[in-house]
């Protein structure tokens, strides 16, 4: 249906969402979900770069045992800025706000999200929040770590905690509004024939994510408000000198911040589900199990927060409950990994870049997930808690999982987003560089952690140096790996080959509209008649 549009008028370039209007105003006031996705892409990349620079500085300091490159104050600000930027302004919005925003309406055959203006509003909240937080972190300096544990953050730290909290609060609001938009869109705006059982798994994953965003984010918002109020007015809610309990802060903080990990990883899982089926041209194995496990994760993720508090003085009985629930949340993730692997079986597997990222994700996520079992184990967590083991574990999940998924998805849908093809050879090289650099950075940290190196240490005993040098070396490779895609994506926008509507020969509604899509996504509202990922019945060639 798309070729007809292109073929008719060869002289005048086809109108699509990118060239329909020009000028800064046409972008900053747009309500088109695709343009807002591009705005998010810019913002997310910016904050990722900031977070990355700070990570590089941290690794440079840790090259040698004594704290010789920066002052302790500076080092503490570095890891705080790295954490806050990466968690709240990159990881949480990355996949939902960029890929989700761009794809969800197209995947379900809608013209836009349910509330386009709220969508734009949430971008502004995100940018304003991010810039406020960045200003506070760099100009004012905050040294609490991204966890803001009381009473350090409320009484003893003298950084700009309140301003940072305001920035995060705004970003949280943005995240809530994005989740709300997705939830309502998926409920009310599906095209005729797009039943729940035909929803792409990417959409299912975002549906589950939006549940967490809606139900979890308000709790961190109020918690940070209380921290701010306590700092300003000495309320004493978390201050032991006034009778409060600092552990209560940890309960409220992790009630959101553990599920937040799943806000970061669930969308990546959705991306991987799409990539694995699309690149092996095979119906996904266990559709119902993958979709169901997303929902199971969304619910279970709210029941396990106490495993961040096994050594905090929480009741041992609560610890037992949290431990068993934490083990249970591993099972839906395992189900996903097995189903992705089974999808490859007897497929038609392509090795193009998105698939490299997908396979990398599966491997790294498996390690990240399994090392999570170490932390759910009460007796073992006591030793590895707050050490580099934790750092390694969650970076395997977040960098090895979320960023791999994000980059894989970006490569997979880049032709759709930009209408251009990226240089395949360079893309493969960068995928390998990232994979190897990543493992060199973070694998040594598992060993460091078990040896007992605590996290957030500016200086460390000399016997840990070799592993730290390896980690820093890996980080430099990883940094280069991240820069290559940045360059060639920019390059491809100008010099890349024009992309066809469906470069991968994939199913899914988003591939049935031209690349880049017109503003209204589909010339005619599509009617869905086939099951999802139907690669076996070849009624129509799936090439545009």
């Amino acid at each position, binding site marked *: 249906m798309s070729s007809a549009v292109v073929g008719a008028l060869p002289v005048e370039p086809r109108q699509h969402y990118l060239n329909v209007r020009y000028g800064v105003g046409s972008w900053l006031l747009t309500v088109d979900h695709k343009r807002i996705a591009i705005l998010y892409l810019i913002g997310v990349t910016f904050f990722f770069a900031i977070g990355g620079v700070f990570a590089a500085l941290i690794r440079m300091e840790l090259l040698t045992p004594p704290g010789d490159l920066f002052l302790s104050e500076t080092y503490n600000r570095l890891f705080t800025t790295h954490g806050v930027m990466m968690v709240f302004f990159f990881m949480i919005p990355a996949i939902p706000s960029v890929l989700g925003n761009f794809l969800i309406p197209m995947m379900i055959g*809608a*013209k*836009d*999200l*349910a*509330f*386009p*203006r*709220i969508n734009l*509003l949430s971008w502004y909240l995100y940018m304003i929040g991010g810039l406020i937080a960045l200003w506070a972190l760099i100009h004012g300096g905050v040294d609490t770590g991204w966890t803001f544990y009381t009473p350090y953050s409320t009484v003893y730290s003298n950084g700009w905690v309140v301003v940072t909290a305001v920035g995060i609060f705004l970003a949280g609001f943005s995240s*809530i*509004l994005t989740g*709300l*938009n997705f*939830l*309502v*869109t998926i*409920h*009310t*705006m599906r095209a005729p024939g797009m039943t729940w059982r035909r929803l792409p798994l990417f959409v299912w994953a975002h549906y589950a994510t939006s549940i967490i965003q*809606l*139900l*979890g*984010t*308000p*709790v961190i*918002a*109020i*918690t940070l*408000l*209380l921290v701010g*109020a*306590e700092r300003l*007015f*000495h*309320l*004493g*809610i978390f201050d032991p000198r*006034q*009778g*409060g*309990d600092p552990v*209560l802060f940890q*309960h*409220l903080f992790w*009630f959101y911040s553990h599920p937040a990990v799943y806000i970061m990883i669930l969308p990546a899982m959705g991306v991987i589900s799409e990539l694995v089926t699309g690149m092996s041209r095979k119906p996904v194995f266990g559709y119902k199990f993958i979709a169901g496990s997303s929902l199971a994760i969304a619910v279970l993720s709210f029941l396990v927060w106490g495993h961040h508090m096994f050594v905090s003085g929480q009741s041992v009985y609560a610890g037992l409950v949290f431990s068993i629930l934490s083990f249970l949340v591993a099972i839906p993730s395992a189900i996903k990994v097995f189903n992705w692997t089974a999808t490859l079986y007897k497929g038609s597997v392509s090795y193009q870049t998105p698939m490299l990222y997908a396979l990398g994700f599966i491997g790294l996520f498996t390690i990240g997930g399994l090392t999570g079992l170490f932390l759910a184990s009460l007796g073992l967590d006591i030793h590895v808690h707050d050490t580099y083991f934790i750092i390694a574990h969650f970076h395997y999940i977040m960098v090895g999982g979320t960023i791999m998924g994000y980059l894989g998805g970006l490569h997979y849908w880049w032709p759709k987003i930009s209408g251009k093809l990226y240089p395949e050879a360079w893309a493969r090289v960068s995928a390998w560089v990232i994979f190897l650099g990543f493992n060199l950075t973070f694998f040594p940290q598992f060993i460091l952690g078990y040896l007992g190196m605590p996290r957030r240490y500016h200086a460390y005993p000399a016997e840990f140096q070799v592993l730290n040098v390896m980690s820093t070396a890996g980080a430099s490779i990883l940094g280069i790996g991240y820069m290559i895609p940045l360059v060639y994506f920019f390059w491809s926008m100008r010099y890349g080959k024009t992309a066809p509507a469906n470069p991968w020969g994939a199913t899914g509604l988003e591939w049935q509209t031209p690349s880049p899509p017109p503003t*209204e996504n589909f010339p005619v509202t599509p009617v869905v008649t086939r099951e999802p990922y139907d690669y076996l019945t070849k009624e129509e060639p799936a090439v545009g």
Partner: protein
Amino acid sequence: MAEAHAAAPHAADPRLQHHFADLAAQKEASTLGMWAFLVTEVLFFGGMFAAYVVYRALFTRAFEGASNLLDIRLGAFNTAVLILSSLTMAIAVRAASQGRKNLIILFLVLTIVLGSTFLGVKVEEYRQKFEHHEVPGPHFVVPEGLPRQAEIFFSLYFCMTGLHALHMIIGVGLLTWLIVKARKGAFTGSYNSPVEMVGLYWHFVDIIWIFLFPLLYLLGRHAP
């Protein structure tokens, strides 16, 4: 609320946005959106309620004693005022569904008056607390014979009622906006979701108070 914005007029059919099939679908989306927003609000307050529940369980004596220092008459009066405002709001929504412009405006104004009464009483209550050094912080004086966690009770009292009052103020702002729109005759029998959405929001704020009242004012009264 922002959701109500989404239902603002659009070029083609004055009130239908381009990406919806019809007004019914649009209204369905905004209703679901509003409810989902209220769900996040429940958990927003929920964080503080959780702190309250935990500390009340731990420091029962302090909380009951401090609770008795609140003015139950003002609290009960405010409860009645807020419930009455919910009634007027409900009638305004009903009037909007019938497109009766003057009735809408009348009851929206009544709601604003009642809401402002509530806020006024609240200000008076806060003033009393300031006078009695019952505001947490450096000037707080632990009331005679109470454990020092009484201060935490007052911290939670001010946070919870303060946030509730902030929601009331936002609500009054939204009501004012509705009145302006209603005067222009924006609401008809077929298009009235902004009134309905603000109504949902207002009732929600009422419900929060329905829980705050017994938790903050009543729970220690039976104690000697």
